[in-house]
């Protein structure tokens, strides 16, 4: 079991390899499956992630509830600035919209936060000219970070709020992106710590209990935070609090959140007059 970011980073530094190599080695040992087969399986996941970006970008229909759809396309054509940030936002929102429209996605770590990793990793891979093989490997880094969070804390919004879902996705994306951009294992851990730190306390308050408002936009913001964490980390800005301790703090904060802010759709934006009105209107809408 991968139980600590520090251990992963030290193992990678000691063996002069990447965090992704440590995680892949762990998977080979624990699953008993051949390395090639494991990498191939991860490659398939990357392909579906990239496809979900393309499908989401072209989405013009509204979701079955009528609450979402078309915002990624809007960003792509009307963003005031076209840069890495606008691309991360558009791609993360594209996948999240595609998810809401019953498209095929890869939960990473959850369906509700599925847009973050594809967006950040594809944009970083393009910018730094990384190969598809490197991008596949960076998903192992993301998985290792997610495993540690799952062990020390939780990845479920119902348990830890949105910080546990989009926050974790953001930390996973930040760490994986740093590796993809050529950062060392230590820098991976700084990015994990700072991305998650930026989202501590984020509540899970889905309007009508659906994975749309505010979840789709939060995928974009989680991607933007991951991108920021990458900038900080690659510039050599360290996190004062080590990643493992930030993860532990995230769990403690999640435990302290009232139930109304943990995916029950009874607090936060879900409980606003407009949130309640949307939920009421939506119960009756069934366009199929």
């Amino acid at each position, binding site marked *: 079991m991968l139980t600590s970011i520090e251990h992963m980073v030290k193992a990678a530094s000691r063996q002069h390899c990447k965090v992704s190599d440590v995680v*892949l080695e762990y998977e080979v040992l624990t699953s008993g499956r051949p390395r090639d087969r494991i990498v191939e399986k991860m490659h398939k996941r990357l392909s579906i992630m990239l496809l979900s970006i393309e499908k989401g970008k072209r989405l013009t229909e509204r*979701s079955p509830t009528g609450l979402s759809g078309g915002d990624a396309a809007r960003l792509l054509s009307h963003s005031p600035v076209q840069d890495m940030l606008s691309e991360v936002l558009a791609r993360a929102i594209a996948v999240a919209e595609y998810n809401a429209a019953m498209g*095929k996605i890869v939960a990473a770590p959850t*369906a509700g936060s599925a847009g973050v990793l594809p967006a950040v990793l594809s944009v970083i891979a393009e910018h730094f000219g990384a190969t598809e093989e490197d991008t596949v490997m960076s998903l192992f880094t993301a998985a290792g970070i997610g495993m540690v969070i*799952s062990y020390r804390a939780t990845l479920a919004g119902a348990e830890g709020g949105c910080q546990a879902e989009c926050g974790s996705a953001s930390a996973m994306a930040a760490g994986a992106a740093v590796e993809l951009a050529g950062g060392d294992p230590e820098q991976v851990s700084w990015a994990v710590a700072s991305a998650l730190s930026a989202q501590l306390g984020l509540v899970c308050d889905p309007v009508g209990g659906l994975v749309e408002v505010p979840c789709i936009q939060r995928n974009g913001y989680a991607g933007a935070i991951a991108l920021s964490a990458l900038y900080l980390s690659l510039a050599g800005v360290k996190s004062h609090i080590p990643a493992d301790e930030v993860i532990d703090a995230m769990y403690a904060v999640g435990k302290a959140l009232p139930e109304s802010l943990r995916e029950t759709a009874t607090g936060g934006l879900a409980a606003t007059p407009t949130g309640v009105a949307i939920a009421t209107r*939506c119960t009756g809408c069934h366009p199929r």
Partner: protein
Amino acid sequence: MSVFDIIGPIMIGPSSSHTAGAVKLGNLARNVIGHTPDHAEILLHGSFARTYKGHGTDLALVAGLLGMRPDDERIPQAFHIAAGSGMQFDIVEGDLGNVHPNSARFSLSWQNTSAIVEGSSVGGGAVVLTAVDGFSLEYSGNSHALLVFHLDRPGSVAAVTGVLAASMLNIGAMRVSRREKGSEALMLIEVDQEIPSSVVAKVSSLEYVRRVIYFAPLEDDN
């Protein structure tokens, strides 16, 4: 835990519990009658009843009954495909009592067979089969398992486990439940390996055994 529990599953959105898990519940229910039913009444409980339209839970449950897996891109068209397959269904909202909020009950019929199956989607796409024909049980769909309906008589458990032992099948977990003493009872036996159909047939032919259902793990290798 595997890296693919974190990066995965590959699924049709929007929700691992309300969509992907719902497909798996439909798969388990289908497995009980071993066929696409002619008719299904699907009762939705709790959060399933409140949010099923927005999460496509109704489509997902029907897709599961049709044998689709959680990553099948035909899930959004499940109602049309059901019509084409001759499966009629009703979606009803109801109350199953003190059960998990994401629960459903399937009342299925196919030719002369019928079954009532209950299950819950407990989070992250994980599911639990909680009742079959009034017998309570707890099966996750992750192991090879036999559901054996039998008469509650001395020696019936030993006879079944004897067949498995003779076939070198190792039992990992087992639970026996009955509605009342001396009447019909249910064994849920989870084993480590795949169970050959010859073994299933041998168990079915035992005295006191009324019906045997074999579950292969739902896990797929995508």
